[in-house]
């Protein structure tokens, strides 16, 4: 074996072509990992393409009425597929979830990053993260047997008696079509979604708040501002687009959440103003009907078309949120934070390697 020095000299002086056996392994390894990495792109393309092909027929038959029709009836002979009730249910439950999760998440991110310190902050952060680890079906089980009865008997009657009396807005909290607040409904599903997306929105909000440069905070404090004023003047303005991005990421997750929602949403087919009515979401109707749907008729194709709608929306939200979060980071990158500098140095060092 040649000595290390000798070999290094060889590498420096001999043109690349003659070090074929050294290079070959590298080329193969690089090419192999690159091939597998490109598989991820293929997967994304296939996901959309397969669902587009298999879910094409309902669009062919109904055109855009597939998305705006209100009548969903898989019974043979009376088949009709209009997905509006599910789109409505998805939008409403996700909106409730996000409306509940955002304020808590932003407050929590500020608490963890700016107010609480040391081990307590760490423990709290881990506990919030653990919420994300709880399986969807466990949320659903708890939702059906614990949350839903409490909602039916206590919280929803209370909301109906208070918010329900407010003009216009009150219609959302009016008693449901059977005159009460019993049964699975959109509101309960929205509350479950709010809990489920809390960890991801909090994690991204923390990431965003963390990118605000220290100088800005120190400048605000040096001007004599209180902690609240520092956060309002220095932290929040810089985090705004990132927090919007975090909300969109949460919204994307909420739209696609299946099992927990399917268990508490009541699986109704109507569109009603009051949130205390049962409903369905796009994922919940796929979960409920997929196994029974016959492939012969339009039923299965319609469910696959719904899956297509769902993934397209989810991907758009995910892409937009990533871009917004990046923009939020880029806003402050004119004056790189220490972490950013480290990254640049690291990248530069790596770039210098063969």
């Amino acid at each position, binding site marked *: 074996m040649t000595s*290390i020095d000798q070999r290094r000299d060889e*590498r420096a002086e001999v043109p690349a072509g003659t070090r074929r056996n050294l290079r070959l*392994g590298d080329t193969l*390894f*690089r090419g192999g*990992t*690159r091939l597998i*990495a*490109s598989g*991820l*792109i293929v997967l*994304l393309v*296939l*996901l959309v393409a*397969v*669902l587009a092909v298999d879910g094409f027929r309902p669009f062919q038959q109904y055109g855009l009425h597939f998305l705006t029709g209100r009548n969903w009836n898989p019974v043979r002979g009376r088949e009709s597929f209009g997905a509006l009730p599910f789109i409505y249910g998805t939008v409403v439950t996700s909106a409730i979830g996000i409306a509940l999760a955002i304020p*808590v*998440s932003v*407050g*929590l991110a*500020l*608490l963890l990053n*700016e*107010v*609480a310190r040391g081990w307590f902050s760490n423990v*709290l952060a881990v506990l919030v993260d*653990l919420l994300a*680890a709880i*399986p*969807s*079906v*466990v*949320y659903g089980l*708890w939702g059906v*047997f*614990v949350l839903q009865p409490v909602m039916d008997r206590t919280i929803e009657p209370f909301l109906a008696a208070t918010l329900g009396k407010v003009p216009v807005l009150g219609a959302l909290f009016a008693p449901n079509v059977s005159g009460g607040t019993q049964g699975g409904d959109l509101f309960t599903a929205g509350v479950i979604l709010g809990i489920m997306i809390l960890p991801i929105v*909090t994690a991204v909000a923390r990431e965003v708040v963390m990118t605000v440069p220290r100088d800005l*905070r120190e400048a605000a*404090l040096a001007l*004599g501002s*209180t*902690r609240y004023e520092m*956060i309002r003047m220095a932290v929040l303005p810089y985090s705004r687009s990132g927090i919007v991005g975090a909300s969109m990421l949460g919204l994307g*997750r909420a739209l*696609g959440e*299946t*099992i927990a929602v399917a268990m508490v949403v009541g699986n109704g087919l109507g569109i009603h103003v009051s949130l205390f009515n049962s409903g369905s979401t796009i*994922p919940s109707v*796929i*979960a409920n009907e997929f*196994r029974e749907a016959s492939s012969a008729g339009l039923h299965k194709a319609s469910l*696959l078309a719904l*899956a297509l709608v*769902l993934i397209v929306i*989810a991907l758009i939200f995910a*892409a937009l949120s*990533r871009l917004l979060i990046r923009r939020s980071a880029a806003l402050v990158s004119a004056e790189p934070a220490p972490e950013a500098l480290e990254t640049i140095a690291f990248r530069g060092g*790596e*770039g210098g390697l*063969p």
Partner: protein
Amino acid sequence: MIAAEHGSVVSHALSPSRRIKDRAFTVAVWTCGLIALVPLVLITSYVIVKGGTALNLDLFTREPNPPGLPGGGIVQSFIGTGIIVGMAVLFSVPLGLLTGVYLSEYGRGRFAGLVRFVAEILLSTPSIVAGAFIWAVVVVAMGTFSGFAAALALTVLMWPILTRATEEILKLVPDDLREAGLALGLPRWRVILRVVIPTAGAGIFTAIMLAVARGLGETAPILLTALGNEFINTNPMTPMDAVPLRIYFYAGSPVVQFHAIAWGAAITLLAAVLALSITARILSHRQVKRTR
């Protein structure tokens, strides 16, 4: 730190309204912290109470009894989950690991940027869509629902998770180590396999644990691909059961005896998932400390 010192030093000079606003803000964010903890405490405590009383050996060793005949278990679900998640790990770990290696070690070009972006947005794939996709591709082609198809559906979800995690972890490996390896004349691929990956070993292991935790709890993709059944089946090319699937079926069942079994399965599932997540967190905390 600065904020705290500041608050205590200058607070005397603050006008009352500014001080009150600052206090109100502090109270508000602490309230958010409390609100976030409520569901965690409620859910885990209910699962422990209801599930604890439902736990017994039969749950893990017997097949389901017919409705009306008390007792019975869901052994087929545990076997199914083991086989499905095991296969999913087998498929997704090499894919995710090597994609992560590519992004971390070679990933500076536009193509790598695209892969990174795709991995990020694939993290948001609704799990039911992964199920519908695999149904359309695999179940239709095989002509039957199967544990194998379920494992592929989980792979769709776990691949991007493992990719992102591996990349992050490999980035923590100091460049000095890579340079040392290269200076010894090792080709780059051997530096990666013999130096970089072993150094990040514990971190990669925690990433796998987190991905397994995710796979264990998924219901929707398995519902559309494995179908479920009520007897022991170890052939992955035929319909299989899984623990989350069984919980979903039993929670919606009108038969009360099945509700107890659902809670018993839920506490088992939750314990496994939380144990994996917590252990992974502790390990990765140590790993980060060591590499710093």
